[in-house]
């Protein structure tokens, strides 16, 4: 990524998101009410609000999965600023392909697609050749302790923890300049959590800008360089 090292990789300003539930009498749920956030290359910002207060909504809005009503979400994409709130669909797709990686705790399983293919999919979409993608996919699956005999199977029948580790392999396979992590360690055992902490440290060493929700206090302390709350100031670490 080019641009000034002192510029944030991700800048959120005055972000508002309200859900209107038309099928339930038009109830309005204001979730984000003027959120400001700046995340710089090489830092991992942890959102520390209690559950249900909008951390996932913010991360999804930054990924342009949710559509905010007001505010700006500016990311540095290919060395120029792109506002995710107003960018055209195909520009959003390009940002997701090259600039922002999003990792949640849930794997969206596609029937019949083998684990290894699920994992390398983001690299293939990026245009990386198949052999390189396969090499990285195998290395990451091994690192996340998915037994090799499972690589050629669809994750449909895997346990929750295995599916989550497949999802992490898929999420971390790209060298994205920005990572959004939504409870990446939620249902993992201690050993797997330590591997995810390592993966996050690797990304930080590459100067990635990371923002995430980490429910697990130990993981949060291990990875966060700074903690914030959505509608307040900096929180105590």
């Amino acid at each position, binding site marked *: 990524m080019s641009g000034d090292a002192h510029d944030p990789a991700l800048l959120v300003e005055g972000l508002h998101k309200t859900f209107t539930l*038309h099928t339930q009498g038009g109830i309005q749920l204001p979730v984000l009410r003027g959120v400001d956030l700046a995340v710089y290359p090489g830092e991992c910002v942890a959102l520390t609000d209690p559950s249900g207060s909008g951390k996932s909504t913010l991360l999804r809005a930054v990924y342009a999965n949710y559509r905010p009503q007001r505010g700006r979400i500016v990311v540095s994409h290919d060395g120029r600023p792109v506002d995710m709130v107003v960018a055209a669909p195909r520009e959003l797709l390009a940002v997701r392909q090259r600039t922002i990686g999003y990792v949640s705790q849930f794997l969206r399983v596609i029937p019949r697609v083998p684990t290894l293919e699920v994992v390398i999919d983001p690299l293939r*979409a990026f245009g990386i050749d198949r052999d390189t993608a396969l090499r990285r996919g195998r290395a990451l699956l091994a690192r996340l302790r998915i037994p090799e005999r499972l690589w050629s199977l669809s994750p449909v029948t895997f346990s929750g923890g295995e599916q989550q580790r497949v999802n992490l392999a898929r999420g971390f396979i790209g060298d994205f300049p920005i990572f959004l992590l939504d409870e990446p360690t939620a249902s993992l055992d201690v050993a797997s959590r330590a591997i995810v902490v390592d993966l996050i440290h690797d990304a930080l060493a590459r100067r990635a800008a990371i923002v995430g929700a980490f429910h697990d206090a130990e993981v949060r302390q291990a990875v966060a360089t700074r903690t914030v709350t959505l509608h307040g100031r900096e929180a105590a670490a």
Partner: protein
Amino acid sequence: MDADVPLLRARGVSRYYGARVGCRDVGLDLWPGEVLGIVGESGSGKTTLLGCLSGRLEPSAGTVEFRQRDDRVMDVLRMPEPALRKLARTDWGIVHQNPRDGLRLGVSAGANVGERLMALGARHYGRIREAAVDWLDRVEIDRERVDDWPETFSSGMQQRLQIARTLVTEPRLVFMDEPTGGLDVSVQARLLDLLRRLVTDLGLSAIIVTHDLAVTRLLAHRLLVMRGGEVVESGLTDQVLDDPQHPYTQLLVSSVLQP
């Protein structure tokens, strides 16, 4: 190729059946390598719109432009009939909901695939047959069946054969009308996986009409939601499915199990 001109551009496309609205004032841009899903319930106008976009149905108003291989932009609705037919045989492919509408039932599977190549001028029998067998492999039809008539195939196999017949000429734009409609669930999953791989490997641009939101989640980059002939919402597929804005889209999404 100029990347800043869409492959297909439609503006103000309307089609009336007497006083009844088929579709009204629809505009869209389709970019190379992009798959656009058009969703809505029966009678929402999505098949009418697909007919207008693919030159098979004359709109009452509007324009549809297609960028050819040489970057010339053609007005699809004002093209002379022979030119339109040539376009349909070469750069375009159409996958019908009922494979019987897209296949010739009275000739072999191999001939069904080879025929589109011959229409483009291929004459070498060995090479045509080779291409046909290769495509049967790609759509997971046993190559031993190359000389069998499609009438002896299951509906899932017929649909895969129609896809092979359509894609053998490497069209730049494929129109699909409910490609997984009427198939058993396990057959659907296989076909979806196949379509997903073909779309990625060939970098296909496609417009897919379906009422199945799960199909769009797997195949489409973007969605248009239609109701009463009009587009009520559009956006990235996951935006529309995960954060639907329009009351009708919210109803559609909340009415299905895990779209």
